[in-house]
């Protein structure tokens, strides 16, 4: 099976879906002539032309709104935000237009739109460029929120997102674009709302998603050397969340650690913990512990940034705590 980058996986998904359905088009900053700020849309302008790959000014609110309008009249736009940090300005279009129009129009207007871009921290991008938005977006009824962590998951989920007739927020990661993984040549789709068990074991459950799935796998592999085998449940979709997968794992292991990229208060992990306490109360041997970013704006200094971010060591410490090992 070919091993390709997360970036190339997304590129393939975009190309295949644009070939399949000529209502699909891509719009955003630097997507066309520059080949994409992170080269995700490399080669697409050449193949599909400037009506299908559209450069925009630096106006997230504006072009998000254009996208919603286009979707309402029958096109299938993919709106790229250079990072989700910049999309904060465009959130009004996501929240008040995209997520609500189907409901408020009494079913007259579908909004088959995909908003995509990198989410969360990279390296020393500093406070305003390192934020994680999955819990903000997952709060809204009317959208789906996807957080693939591997090339395989990215391609399969982006294709499903584009084919979905309702708004989807697709959260990537600058740190993920260069990661590599096996991706089949044949076409495949991954259903939205289905988690994936990335590692298996009955000592503890790690529930996670996005680039934290890589951290979780690192922690799991480290612990496996000491004979401790844990489940890594990669949610892949945070709205709607795969509660069954969470339950199955926790019922097996009797304890959980939730690993997320964002801040503590009202982070996406709080929802995971709610599902666990609600549905797995009787099988819990320990309270659920969350591992997340420190409750500060992301520092710029290398050492402080490292201290603020969740990592494998912190994850392992949390696992050992719920296992009462230390």
């Amino acid at each position, binding site marked *: 099976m070919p091993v390709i980058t997360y970036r190339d996986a997304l590129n393939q998904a975009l190309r295949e879906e644009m070939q399949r359905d000529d209502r699909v088009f891509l719009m955003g900053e630097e997507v066309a002539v520059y080949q994409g700020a992170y080269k995700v849309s490399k080669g697409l302008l050449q193949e599909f032309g400037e009506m299908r790959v559209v450069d925009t000014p630096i106006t997230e609110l504006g072009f998000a709104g254009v996208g919603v309008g286009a979707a309402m009249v029958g096109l299938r736009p993919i709106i790229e935000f250079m990072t989700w940090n910049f999309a904060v300005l465009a959130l009004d279009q996501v929240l008040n237009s995209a997520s609500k129009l189907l409901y408020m129009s009494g079913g007259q207007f579908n909004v088959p739109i995909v908003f995509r871009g990198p989410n969360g921290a990279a390296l020393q991008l500093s406070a305003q460029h390192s934020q994680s938005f999955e819990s903000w977006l997952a709060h809204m009824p009317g959208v789906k929120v996807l957080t693939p962590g591997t090339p395989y998951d990215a391609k399969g989920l982006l294709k499903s997102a584009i084919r979905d007739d309702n708004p989807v927020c697709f959260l990537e990661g600058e740190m993920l674009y260069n990661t590599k993984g096996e991706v089949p040549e044949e076409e495949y789709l991954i259903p939205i709302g289905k988690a994936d068990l990335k590692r298996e074991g009955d000592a503890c459950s790690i529930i996670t998603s996005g680039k934290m799935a890589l951290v979780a796998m690192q922690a799991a592999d480290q612990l496996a050397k000491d004979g401790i085998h844990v489940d890594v449940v990669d949610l892949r979709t945070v709205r709607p969340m795969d509660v069954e997968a969470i339950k199955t794992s926790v019922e097996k292991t009797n304890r959980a650690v939730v690993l997320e990229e964002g801040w503590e208060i009202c982070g996406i992990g709080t929802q995971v913990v709610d599902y666990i306490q609600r549905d797995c109360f009787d099988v*819990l041997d320990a309270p659920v512990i969350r591992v997340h970013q420190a409750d500060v704006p992301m520092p710029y200094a290398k050492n402080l940034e490292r201290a603020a971010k969740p990592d494998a060591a912190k994850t392992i410490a949390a696992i050992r705590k719920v296992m009462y090992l230390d």
Partner: protein
Amino acid sequence: MEALSPTMEEGRLVKWLKNEGDAVKSGDSLAEVETDKAIMELVARGDGILRKRLVGEGESRPVGQLVGVIAAADENIDSLVASAGAASAAPAKPAEQAAPQASAQPAAAPAVAPSQEKPAAPVPPPPPPATQPQQLTASAGNGGPVRSSPLARRLASERGLDLSRVQGSGPSGRIIKRDIESAMAAEVAAQPAAARAAIRPASGADFEDISLTQIRKTIAKRLSESIGPIPTFYLTAEFDVSRVMEMRAAMLELGDEFKVSVNDVLMKAVATALAQHPEVNAHWLGDRIREHHRVHLGMAVATPDGLIVPVIFDADQKRMSEISAEAKELAKRARERKLKPEEYTGSTFSISNLGMFGIDQFTAIINPPEVAILAIGTAADVAVPAGDSFKVQKRIRVTMSCDHRAVDGAVGAAFLQTLRRLIENPLMMVF
């Protein structure tokens, strides 16, 4: 008080065999103890002097409680005697995994604490490595409520463990899964103190209360568990036993040593039939039926204290004479209350014969987990048609009680068909 049988929860000290001050050696019999089924002997587990007898004759104690102290002549046993008086010792129960054994190796610690062993508290179970047995309440002694994880609570309740007797190793003394697992491994099982037995005979002429012997209590408990939940149906059949009688008469002519009772012949026939019908030689285990390939025949015996069912193992493999001899011996020892637990457990099918009391026919109560029981009535002379007239024939009526969860009518009837063929044609038993 040791667990002298697998189901024993308390014992009544019938008679002390040693006095205070007597020297005893490990293995010496100290006392006779009445268990739920029989009288057994309490045996010394160490050498020394029997310094104190803490139970009077006729008194009962739960398994695990201190009943006496063996120590060296000059050892101070005040603390042991005092704590026995406090009666707060946690009685222990043998672990379910322990194979039912007689007086050897009780899973509970010695109830008569030889004090040349380390001076453990009278709480019997060998202290598990990580916990302190004195700490009977959890929550690390802060006097608060027992803290435990939901999982630990559920596991404890499933296994009948009292959380207040488990030491918690989690934060703030929280009891967690591994504490329950250690407690199970150390065989700390909670057991409510058994109720005291005797009701004093009431004075007055109009009535007399008879206190329940252990055997009576056991019969009441076990057979209530039988007739209530088991959907039972009854099959009656009448057999011609004239050939059996002829056979017996023929054997008796050869000598007194070849005498067998009608019941012995019937037992051999039943055992032979059971070997051909494993579906009635079975146990109902709730989620499955265990068909036994060996035939262990329970034989109901009336004793002065009540009913007990000793077992003739592999009855189908034994000759009639062996069955006869064993039946006699078991009945005798049953009446003397000298049966060992392994002699009255393990039957795959039971029979009950009230023929000697002139009972024509009766229905017996199934002995769970067996799926059937056969009740045998008296052999009576009956007028039967013969041509245009009648002849007299000795016939016997048997009633088979069957657990419909495991045995259907046709299955029970097929067994009785086979049994009829064997009884009416006894030579088939040697075929």
